[in-house]
């Protein structure tokens, strides 16, 4: 056995994963090679220190609950889908029709995915933000340890975001700031603020969006500004860019109320 072959087996030796023959062969090499023996001793010592003396960070309860909630949501969706499919496939008269519909339903999106253009980043980010908003409403009122104080939120953002979110509006008596926390949108870090006006909850996402081009159509004219407006899953969405940052509001507010919130954020 060479030194390289021996080193390749150190991890397995330290975790008792070698067969008796491999172990014997390695020990034979170690008895003849003081350098490898010293390296293995050091490796064993360091591994023991890390395993037994270094901090182990178990998942906190709030995170576990949040993940379990997400998992249950996924399971419920999948369970319903499976039951519906079972009913369709076990009813003979509709079998042929179901087959044809399934083939079409599967083939068309695949065709669209392979042949059609890649989804627009603006469409993707709107979709992800609205899903995040839906999740937030499912958990409403927000609980946990996310701060509601602007100074605490700013401090958290400074520690966790790799950009400065340039927030100038932190709520007022009419539009109250409920929470703020860092999140992910399109696999990039984003700042999220939750506002409440009347009974309607709105979320503001700010994230690096230099690569996201705002669609030229469907622009809403608000006091000289023209953010992109759309509706997704019954929520109103406004999307615009300020320099390298993209801003996105998801809300149930009426259009005039949403304009008011937009102006507060865009032009405080």
């Amino acid at each position: 056995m060479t030194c390289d072959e021996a080193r390749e087996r150190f991890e397995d030796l330290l975790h008792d994963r070698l067969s008796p023959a491999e172990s014997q062969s390695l020990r034979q090499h170690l008895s003849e090679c003081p350098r490898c023996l010293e390296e293995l001793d050091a490796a064993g010592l360091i591994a023991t220190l890390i395993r037994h003396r270094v901090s182990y960070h178990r998942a906190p309860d709030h995170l576990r609950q949040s993940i379990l909630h997400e998992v249950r949501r996924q399971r419920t969706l999948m369970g319903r889908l499976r039951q519906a499919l079972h009913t369709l496939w076990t009813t003979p008269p509709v079998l042929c029709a179901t087959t044809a519909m399934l083939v079409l339903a599967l083939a068309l999106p695949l065709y669209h995915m392979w042949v059609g253009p890649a989804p627009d980043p603006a469409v993707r980010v709107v979709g992800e933000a609205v899903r995040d908003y839906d999740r937030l409403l499912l958990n409403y009122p927000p609980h946990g340890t996310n701060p509601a104080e602007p100074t605490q939120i700013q401090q958290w953002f400074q520690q966790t975001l790799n950009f400065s979110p340039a927030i100038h509006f932190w709520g007022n008596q009419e539009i109250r700031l409920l929470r703020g926390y860092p999140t992910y949108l399109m696999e990039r870090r984003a700042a999220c603020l939750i506002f409440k006006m009347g009974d309607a909850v709105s979320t503001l996402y700010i994230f690096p969006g230099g690569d996201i081009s705002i669609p030229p159509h469907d622009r809403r004219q608000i006091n000289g500004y023209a953010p992109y407006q759309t509706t997704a899953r019954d929520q109103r969405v406004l999307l615009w860019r300020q320099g390298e940052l993209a801003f996105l509001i998801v809300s149930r507010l009426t259009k005039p109320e949403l304009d008011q919130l937009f102006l507060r954020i865009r032009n405080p």
Partner: protein
Amino acid sequence: MTQTELAAAIVVHLDALHNLAAWLARDSAAASALVQATCRQALRAMPQELSGTPLRVGLVTIMWRLYRQDHRLSGDGLSDIAVEHVATDKRVLYHTLSKADLDAGLRQLPEALRAALILTAMEGYSLEDLTAIFGWSKPRTQIVLATARQLLDRLLQARLTSIGVSPAPEVKDVP
């Protein structure tokens, strides 16, 4: 793997995921955010991505990919490290170091080295697992692990020196 099996398995591996995230991220909030993003992405995309890969490896691969993208990491952090040979006599005194000293030493390692050590020592990942997670070749993975250990060795010895601990002088039998 079905979505249900995947979901159940994510819960099983949650502590391991959070531990790695906490060792990578700057604070607990960032660690939680990283775990949530990992789980969300796994639930969305993993059954397709994971053909033939052990689940825990797939989950950590997703986490490492997200962390790298987020922190714009490139390479494994070995290029600017020169490890000197360290004396072996002080190793017997490592047990005198506090948990805080050991934590601080581990935190000083570059992220990739730290993650590789944590995965092997705490979670029992094999060399093959690391090659799949980090995308390194097998020899490269060995070098990374050896360098990580040597670097930590050096950092711990420096810590012992700074707090004034030295090995007892050797006692020789006098005839």
